[in-house]
Structures are given as C-alpha cells and as structure tokens.
C-alpha cells in the first residue's frame, strides 16, 4: 500500500503542494495513515466474521472494482456506458473456462480475464467511442446485449442459460482456496491492486487529459489532442479492469450466468456509480456496497422485493444526494475551503 502515497503529491488537490517539502512529507503521512488503517481493518475482517459475511464482503469488493472501472468511463471520461457488464461477463467466462480446461492456479485466470476484457473492449470501443451522448448509450447497450445473446446461445462453450458451472476453486501454490476467509484475502489482494491501478490511471497526465475531454472536448482538440484516441484507450482500460473483476467473480461464486453479462448487471453497476458519486473513484465503492447489500442481503428477507427497495434507495439518493455519497464529503471540504465560495 505504501506505493500509493508516493503519488498522492500529484495534482488533484494541489493545496499542500506549494509549501516546502517537510510539510509535504507530513501531509503525506497524514493522508496515508487512514488508508493504512482501512487496509488493516479490511484484512482483519475474516478473523472476526462468519463465512457468509466474508463472502458478502468479497462480492462487495468485486462489484466495487467493477464500479470503479466504470467510473473511469462515466465520471472521468464522461462516457456513460450501459453495456459495461459485457466486459465483466467476458472476464468471468474467460476465468471460468481457463479454470475448467487449463489451470486455476492463482493469478492466471484473473490475468487472462483482464486481458480478455481489455481486448473485447478495444474491439467494440473502436466503434462506440466515435459516438457520444445518447448514441454512445445505445451502442454500448447493443454491444452488451450482443454479448448476452452470445452467452445464451453458445451452449457448447458457455453452458447456455444453465450457466457455466463446475468451476474449480482458485488454487494458490497448488492448494485450493475453499475457506471463505482465505478466498476473501485473495479477492482483497487482487481488488486492491485493481483499485491502485485505476487510481494511478485517473491521476496520471493521461487521466487529466481524460478529464479535459470530459469538460471540454472541442478545446482539447484545439490544444492538439486527439480525443478519439484517448477515449478509446480509456474504454479499453475500463474494459480490462471490468474483466479483472469478472475473473474474481468467477473464482468466488464458481458459476457464471448469462445475466452477469446483460443489461440488468450493467444498469445495476451504473446505478452504483451514480449512487456513490461519479468521478470520485471512491464514491462508487460505497455505491457498490449499498447495491450488493440491498440486493443480496436484504433482498431475500423482503420476499424478493430487493429490486423495489433498490429503486426506492435510488430515488431517495437522487433527491437527497445529487452528487452521490461522495457529494457529502465534497460539501464538507468546500465549506472549509471557501466560506460562501462560488457554486
């Protein structure tokens, strides 16, 4: 984790930047400390909770990574996609097939899943990224449905509507990870790497170019950037991380269904991003947690009315928190920074 602070000095809030270096070093430690505590807490969780809770937390982490990868598109680049589950699903199927037919040795299935997600996103993004606004929504929706149909029809490969089952459990050093706690640690490790990767992308010069495109694409063109190229690469990267999340998912639940690639999943994850606050990267993590908890944990206690509850949560959130959960934190800092500052 100590890799992250190294780069926290980068622009984002150039506030402490101007001051001489000793203060910067201390600010760094101050910013790193909560992250470290959070990491230790997350790592310690399986020592205290029941297997079912550990399993739920694993799922939350996976959907959080998935949501943050979508946030790179929606919040950072300004491309709201309705077909992001396609790359999640492609990753999941890839990891499942690799595990069944070749090896389930730790990083291999997820790495190939990420690669498959990125390649699929590159192949389809080539087309989708040329459009914008509603057309981009429609194109990504269509591509998601295409993948969903393929997953349904290619029964020989994907198992069709029965799903791809019998995926062997993940192995680390030849030992299968069957205990929920160990599996959780595996998911935590990979997901954290994914978060760090996405954070680095969003805060690199490449990431600030994406934000520029989101804010004012014509101006970026006049500065000499080719928006298409940047959007395309962002689309492929987002697909890659969605594939990574899908690979983790296949290793965790050990069955992949066509619905995991379909519109419902895409819409849910877009909901998680909006709920959490698009463009912040950490907001969608909370959004994903709420979505998974409401759907999987509270849903079954409501006689299958989980989606209804989710809908209510969403409507309330849009009214009360127009910028998502992240908006709450933004409110606090803005008030501190400039009393009566411009909206």
């Amino acid at each position, binding site marked *: 984790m100590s890799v992250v602070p190294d780069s926290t000095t980068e622009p984002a809030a150039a506030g402490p*930047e101007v001051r001489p270096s000793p203060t910067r070093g201390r600010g760094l430690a101050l910013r790193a400390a909560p992250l470290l505590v959070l990491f230790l807490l997350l790592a310690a969780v399986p020592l205290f909770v029941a297997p079912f809770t550990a399993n739920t937390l694993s799922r939350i982490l996976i959907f959080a990574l998935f949501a943050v990868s979508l946030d790179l598109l929606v919040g950072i680049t300004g491309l709201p996609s309705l077909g992001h589950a396609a790359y999640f699903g492609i990753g999941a199927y890839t990891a499942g097939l690799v595990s069944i037919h070749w090896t389930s040795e730790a990083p291999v299935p997820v790495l190939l899943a990420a690669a498959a997600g990125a390649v699929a996103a590159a192949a389809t993004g080539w087309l989708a990224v040329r459009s914008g606004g509603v057309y981009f929504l429609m194109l990504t929706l269509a591509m998601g449905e295409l993948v969903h149909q393929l997953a349904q029809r290619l029964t020989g490969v994907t198992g069709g509507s029965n799903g791809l089952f019998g995926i062997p459990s993940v192995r680390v050093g030849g030992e299968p990870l069957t205990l929920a706690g160990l599996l959780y640690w595996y998911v935590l490790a990979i997901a954290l790497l994914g978060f760090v990767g996405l954070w680095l992308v969003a805060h690199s010069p490449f990431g600030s170019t994406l934000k520029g495109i989101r804010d004012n694409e014509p101006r970026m063109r006049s500065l000499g950037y*080719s928006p298409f190229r940047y959007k395309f690469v962002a689309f492929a990267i987002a697909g890659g991380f969605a594939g990574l999340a899908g690979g983790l998912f296949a290793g965790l639940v050990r069955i992949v269904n066509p619905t995991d690639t379909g519109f419902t999943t895409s819409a849910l994850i877009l909901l998680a991003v909006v709920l959490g606050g698009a463009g912040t990267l950490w907001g969608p993590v909370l959004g994903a947690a709420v979505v998974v908890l409401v759907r999987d944990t509270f849903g079954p206690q409501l006689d299958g009315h989980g989606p209804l509850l989710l809908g209510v949560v969403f409507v309330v959130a849009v009214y009360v928190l127009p910028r998502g959960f992240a908006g709450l934190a933004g409110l606090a800092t803005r008030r501190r920074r400039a009393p009566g500052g411009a909206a």
Partner: protein
Amino acid sequence: MSEPLLSLSGVSRHFGALKAVDAVDLGIPAGSRHALIGPNGAGKSTLFKLITGAMPVSSGTVALGGSDITGLSENQRARRGISQTLQHSSLFLTQTVLQNVLLAAQRHHPGRRSLVPRRQAAARERARALLADVGLEQRSDTPVAALSHGERRQVEVAVALACEPRLLLLDEPAAGMSPAESARLVGLLQALPESVTVVIVEHDLDVVFALATSVTVLHLGRVLLTGSPDQVRTSDAVQEAYLGTGRESLFLDGTGPAHLEVS
C-alpha cells in the same frame, strides 16, 4: 518580404447562399503582429475557424510555413504550432487554473505519455511561469468556475501560450477585461519573442494600434484593405465600412464603395 508563415489563398466559406468568408487572400510574414478588424459579421471569427481547422473551408487553401494544411484536422494543425484563444472563454471549468494550463503544457513537455502520475516538473514550471506572466500566480489553485470574466480571459491566454505556438490567434482577447488587465495583456503580447507570430482580432482599437505592425480590414467576408495601422486609420473605405455610407445609400443606386463590396 520574407516567406509568409501563414498564407491563405482564395479561402471561402459559404453557409448556403451566405458567403461568410469570400475568396480571402492573406499572407502573414513570420514574426509579424497582425490585426484583423472589421465590423460585426465581417467574418473574422469564421476566418479564424478556417485557419485553426475547427471548420472546413468551402474552397481555397491554407498553408502554414509553406506546407499545405488545408486537409489536416484541428488537432493536427494544433500540433504544427497553431494555437488560439476563443472569443468566448472555453476552459475546463471543473479544474483549477493551474490544471487548465497544465493540460496544454503537458503536451509540449516530456512525460505526457505516461500512465503513471509523475511530477511533470518541466510542464509545471512552464505553467507557473505563464500564470505569473498573465498575472494569475495567486489564483493557480482556484477552480476556473470561480474566476471573473476578465480572469478567465487571462487563463485563456496562458493556455494558448502553453501550447508553445508558432502562430498565435487571439480572438478578442481583451473583451471584458478592465483597462489595467488589457494594458497588462498588451505588455505581455509585446514581450513575446519573434518566433511567435500573432494574429489578433480585437474591437478595442487602442489594443490593436498598440500592438499591430500591419492591419487587415475585413468587410462582409472580403478583404477591404491590408496595410500599416496609419494607412488603415486614414482610409475612407474603412471609415465607411464601420460607419455606414450614410442614409442616402438606402435610396440612391450604386455609388458608394460599400456597394462595390456587396455586389
């Protein structure tokens, strides 16, 4: 006269029957300070868009430094050294002043292809120097959305200069600036090195005559006159284009020079 940096030949842009820019020939020598003036609707902004590539020409060719760039897209032209400020501020509103300038500066300083955060020391230093030049060093961490109109114009200039242009196109840079701000702008532009050629559209004639070594007057999409500032100041045709030909032209047939231009 040396080889012109920018040369337009027969450049036209039609919107249906309206000839917004009509067969304009213009050669702008390297290092010159050239002003483009004309009444509203003369086609100044459209001509700028044709030069930057934001809008395709209907006919004619645009050449930069002797090579034809008519077929190049806007971002390709920008990479060849054309930079501009727009008539209406066009910035990245959610980001700070420094980030705005950095976006332009990082293209022209090493390290921009990196996927990993870097210090970008060179680009940062350049951006800070430019902000000091335009007088915004105190505001570098302010979001652009919180700036006044005049300050945004100053950021525009800093962003345009951060592209390290060969040809700098300024579309009404002083509009909405206070007299002090526009005096500062004139000083900044006068201090630019010879390697930057400046073309400026401006309604504030004080700014124009303080800066320009040559002036082109556009009227109804055509070049009315190109000459030194003094020639332009004393030209009857220019007076007429700005002030109109007097009421008699509404009733009398084809005598004034304005009629010649329209027909």
